[in-house]
């Protein structure tokens, strides 16, 4: 029926080379292994250096003479103490958490509602409504017109402007809708209807419990979007004191990495007292990564299904 179902019956469940396949040469195997290891290392090493630096004491950093180090010699939690000490960084993290939780909740309500509302075959007006949604894939209204509307609604410099304008992602909506149409048996819904259940009851009692995995993936996509919010904050809420964490991180970065070549002398800028230490910057980076890394393993196994549902079957 669909590619995803075929994926479930993977041809190589036994973890063994099929008998008709000849053994590759040793050279081929080694090249492949080296390539995979290098590729993975290119992703892991920078992340490791970030984490290591965030725990490094100032002495260790000065001795390393730079921004990052691989092996922290004497560990220090100062950077994290500073982040969670209740200052601007704490506020920013709290704000970002609230935006992420609230935004994801709103997005899920919009997405689930429309995905189910448009998924019943032959319902009144579902085709023109679907067209209205699909058109958003083909065209973008543009930055300034969107900005004007946010201003006219009085949402400029209002945290709601970081949620409402991007609360609905048509791609997620389509993914969820096609999941409802193909993976939730229509007979089950019809049977519930025979028993006198209304559409809302069917949605909450029948459809949603069967869709937990895909809902989790979509919620993750939304949550990551809100967690990583940067451009919208620059655009819509530049005047507010507490900014999302990505904006704060960008400001910290720019405060030491200003003009081209200006930071080429490490010793020179370490003397500027106002500049945040590398450890603090990297600790903020760690704080922005950690929630993603925690969520990730729970949801990762469903990625393929969600992406394929969206892109191939639509």
């Amino acid at each position, binding site marked *: 029926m669909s*590619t995803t179902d075929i*994926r479930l019956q993977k041809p*190589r469940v036994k*973890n063994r080379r099929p008998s*008709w396949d000849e053994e590759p040469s040793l050279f081929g195997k080694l090249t*492949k292994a080296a*390539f995979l290891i290098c*590729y*993975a290392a290119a*992703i892991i090493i*920078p*992340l490791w*250096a970030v984490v290591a630096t965030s725990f490094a004491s100032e002495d260790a950093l000065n001795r390393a*003479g*730079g921004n990052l*180090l691989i092996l922290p010699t004497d560990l220090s939690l100062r950077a994290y103490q500073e982040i969670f000490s209740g200052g601007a960084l704490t506020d920013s993290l709290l704000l970002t958490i609230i935006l992420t939780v609230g935004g994801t909740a709103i997005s899920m309500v*919009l997405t*689930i*509602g429309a995905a189910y509302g448009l998924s*019943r*075959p*032959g*319902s009144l*007006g579902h085709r023109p409504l679907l067209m209205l949604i*699909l058109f*958003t894939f*083909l065209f973008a*209204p*543009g*930055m*300034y*017109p969107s900005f*004007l509307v946010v201003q006219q609604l009085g949402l400029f410099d209002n945290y709601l402007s970081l949620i409402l304008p991007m*609360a*609905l992602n048509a791609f997620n909506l389509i993914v969820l809708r*096609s999941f409802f149409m193909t993976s939730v048996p*229509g007979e089950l819904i*019809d049977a519930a209807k025979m028993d006198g259940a209304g*559409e*809302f009851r069917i949605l909450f009692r029948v459809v949603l419990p069967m869709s937990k995995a895909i809902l989790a993936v979509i919620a993750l996509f939304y949550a990551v979007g809100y*967690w990583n919010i940067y*451009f919208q904050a620059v*655009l819509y809420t530049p005047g507010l004191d507490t900014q999302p964490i990505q*904006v704060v991180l960008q400001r910290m*970065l720019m405060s030491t*990495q200003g*003009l*081209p070549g200006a*930071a*080429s002398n490490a010793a020179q800028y370490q003397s500027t007292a106002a500049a945040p230490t590398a450890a603090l910057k990297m600790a903020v980076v760690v704080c*922005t990564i950690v929630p*993603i890394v925690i969520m*990730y393993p729970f949801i*990762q196994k469903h*990625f*393929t299904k969600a992406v*394929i549902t*969206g892109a*191939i079957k*639509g």
Partner: protein
Amino acid sequence: MAALKTSAPPAAGGAPDRPRIVRKQTVSQRLRHDWPLLIMTLPALAQLSVFFYWPSSWNIIAFMDYSPYRPFWENPFVGFAWFGRLFSDPYFMPALVNTLQFALAQLALVFPLSIFLALVMHSVISTRVRSVFQSIVYLPYFFSWVLVVTVFIQMLGADGLVSNWMLGFGGDRLNVTADPDSFMFLAWMQWTWKDAGWGMIIFLAALSSINPSLYEAAAVDGASRWRRMWHITLPGIRPVIVLLLILQIGTILTVGFEQYQLQREAVGYQTTEVLDTFVYYRTILSSNGESLGTAAGLFKGIIGLLLVLAANHIAHRLGEQGIYQKS
């Protein structure tokens, strides 16, 4: 996006396995039947109306001499004058050229890399190695551009880790994060780091949907590993490649905003200016650019629309499925 093809055509009799047939009812009967569904759809439609269709209609100011400081109806219509001005603007053409360069580089350098990664991954027998490698390379896709740029500056910047190593070996500092000449290389590394791994997910799924008995039959007939790849694997994932190419061509003028805005100061605007940053600096950060910037945005939107439609048409002519079908 392909939902057009799965939306069961209701007028044509509906899906035979769904017994609910509603087409003989009048609108008011159907409304009485379907109103809960419409209520559920309503919040999403409201969001779209306010934040997609309403702004879309504001594109009309691209045809006006618009100023936010006077009432709307006092702004005179000027026809297509701003679109003419765009092409004589000293900053627009470079921004357009840069945008196309970045988009084509992504298409030529990152897209094939994703396919290559998927092919390598598919040839790995051990499921354990596969799942570990996939977990690692998917992860950066979820990082923000702020984070990616920060990590790159810390690693490859003039004070970065690699620079320090090179100093230790008697070399010079790197300047790759602040050098306009090598920005394309830097951008390529960033795309690769962030997105190439995630890009393989869809090809992997396509690969595992190829019937394994095809390989077996070919192997029995004496086809070598490379011939099997050429005659079975690549044709097997061709529809997916075409589909993704169409999607990419449709968004060729949308290369993103944050990556370029974040590195603008260090690298210089000449190299990093793309259409989105052009619009941003013209409309939001300076006065009197509202109509010109909106015209640039509308130009981008219309070209994108035409490109998707054209690419899809070509895909149909080539016998591929494309994004949506004429139902």
